[in-house]
């Protein structure tokens, strides 16, 4: 069947695009977060956001995976202690590429009010962060907004590997 015949059969029902856009579109709409909460932000960022009131499933991210090997987004929800830091890094290393990180709340982003010996002063010291969410804790709308920002970033990334 030649291209002319194909055009004849399908008519106007053909879209042309690039592979990167298709892959980015697919990835962005099924981001699977790791079911990984560290502190009170997990209530808002994982449980409340995934509940029926806010329903992060509207954006394709309701499948929180209990294993890092099945997830491609880590929402760092809460303060990271010095002792938890190597564990968090190991979980991140176990996630398959491509993977992204959202730093949720003041504690994960900067240490928050816990400016002391026990707490890591920002999770970006040990993992690369794509989106930061301010707030203590952020509202579920903020988390959904961060996911939408991340989706734009994923779509723009396409098939290019992470730098």
């Amino acid at each position, binding site marked *: 069947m030649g291209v002319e015949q194909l055009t004849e059969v399908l008519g106007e029902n053909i879209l042309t695009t690039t592979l990167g856009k298709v892959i980015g579109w697919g990835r962005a709409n099924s981001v699977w977060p790791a079911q990984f909460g560290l502190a009170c932000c997990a209530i808002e960022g994982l449980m409340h956001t995934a509940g029926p009131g806010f329903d992060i499933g509207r954006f394709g991210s309701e499948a929180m995976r209990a294993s890092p090997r099945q997830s491609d987004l880590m929402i760092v929800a809460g303060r990271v202690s*010095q*002792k938890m830091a190597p564990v968090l890094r190991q979980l991140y290393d176990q996630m398959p590429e491509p993977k992204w990180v959202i730093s949720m709340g003041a504690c994960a982003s900067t*240490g928050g009010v*816990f*400016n*002391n*010996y*026990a*707490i890591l*002063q920002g999770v970006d010291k040990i993992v690369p962060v794509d989106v930061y969410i301010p707030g203590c804790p952020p509202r579920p709308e903020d988390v959904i907004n961060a996911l939408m920002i991340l989706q734009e970033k994923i779509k723009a990334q396409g098939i290019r590997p992470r730098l």
Partner: protein
Amino acid sequence: MTTSVLPDDTVLASGVLAGQEWVTIRREDLRDSMRALKAQGFESYLFMTCVDHLATPVVEKPPERFELVYQLRDMRAHREYRVRVFIPENDATAPSLHDIYAPANWDERETWDMFGIAFEGHPDLIRILMPDDWVGHPLRRDFPVGGEPVDFSEDHETWQTAPPEA
């Protein structure tokens, strides 16, 4: 209600604060006194903690820098009892009570981790909260708070970030 259930010669000081009986005893008498208290019905070991009296704004100056506080409960008589032991700074050791009260095991590890009180006779005195390679004992009052200096804050100039050398 008597204020002291221990022999008078072991009790350095005693009193009742807000309905709570307490005694201060010597470090050498700690194990014998705890055995005696357990035999008298104080079978429940509630907690043990430590106080660092370095530059504490208290009315009465404490005799030594560190103070161990043991809280016991008599489940039948509905009665609690508090035992205080002062520990000098240059000899920060205390006898372990893990064979008298089993829960003392982890409390002593925590007190070692946070205050650096070495418990003699403890079966496995290692850190319980901080990372294993941590240097120092963070709840001592001469340990820096740590963290990072914050620009434009009041204590930005005097902030101490690094833990002290061991």
